[in-house]
């Protein structure tokens, strides 16, 4: 599935991943391919991207953390929308 992470100051990530974990206000949850359409509010926490060959812009590398095959992005708050295997995260 395709994930886009955008902030008011620009796009942070755009690419294919296998799964994504987001910090929902009612607890973290994971989304896999063909997840039902969802809109959720996110709280302060980590967005975790899992997959093969996730590429991150060199300029933005210091915002991400890479640990055991996961790419982690801490956010303050945000919103996630998933439909038709397209995930868009509006992060702050």
């Amino acid at each position, binding site marked *: 599935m395709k994930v886009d992470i955008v*902030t008011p*100051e620009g796009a942070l990530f755009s690419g294919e991943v296998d799964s994504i974990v987001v910090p929902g206000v009612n607890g973290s949850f994971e989304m896999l391919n063909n997840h039902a359409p*969802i809109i959720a*509010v996110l709280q302060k926490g980590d967005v975790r991207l899992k997959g093969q060959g996730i590429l991150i812009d060199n300029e933005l590398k210091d915002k991400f953390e890479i640990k055991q095959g996961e790419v982690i992005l801490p956010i303050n708050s945000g919103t996630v929308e998933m439909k038709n295997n397209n995930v868009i995260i509006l992060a702050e």
Partner: protein
Amino acid sequence: MANLKDIRTRIQSVGSTMQITNAMKMVSAAKLKKAQDAIEKMRPYAEKLTELLAGLSANLDAELGGDYAAQREVEKVLLVPITSNRGLCGALNTNIIKQTIRLVENDYQNKEVEILTIGKKAHDQLSKKYKVVANHSNIFDDLTYENVAQVAQKIMDEFVEKKYDKVVLIYNSFKNAATQIVKTEQFLPIKPEASGSNVVLDYLYEPSQAEIVLELIPKSLKTQFYKAIRDAWASEHGARMTSMHKATDNAKEMKADLTLQYNKARQAVITGEILEIVSGAEALKG
């Protein structure tokens, strides 16, 4: 005819002014490019947010918007003029200040008006005459979403606390380097939008739909505020670039005029000298 030395000094000083204005033009052009890029980068976020919000509120019947949409009898108004910190950018700041004064004197004549300035120029001009409650000029020193959001949040809190009944932004909207348009935009309360879109997709919502809307509205307000400031920032550099370009052109013209004058004066001196020599020689012959 002015003497040669005077003209030479003036040519030199016009020349160095020209160098300065030309350098300022280059600097502004570079900054303008950056400012435009930032607006461009913000667009995907702003568009998605608007789309989400429109889709969500279209599916809800109830009056939404929470505290930020409260329409009250307008008694206390907060005006937020956004100008630059520095001058030499044409009529840019004057337009904003004029519009602010016009609003205070005409539109909100019988209301209690307070002003929150962003940009030193507005603060310098308006604080002499009107009630300026706060000044956030330093926002331009480090223009990040986070900093802007803090100011926006404060204004939003004050609106909710009923300190103000209406908040209006006055800023220059960037059209191109030569054209900036003064915009007067109602920030709060939120104007109820005509819900037209009917994209009914079967979404799961977490938490409820109404709660998500309440969560998104402050974000969209902050984005609106951020956009206004970004716009003003780009306008400033655009206007400065244009006015410095004009100044350089004027200096060039002036230098050409002065050079012509200088050459004429020099020629007159030479002609005078030749005349003296020739008539001296004639006198010796005679």
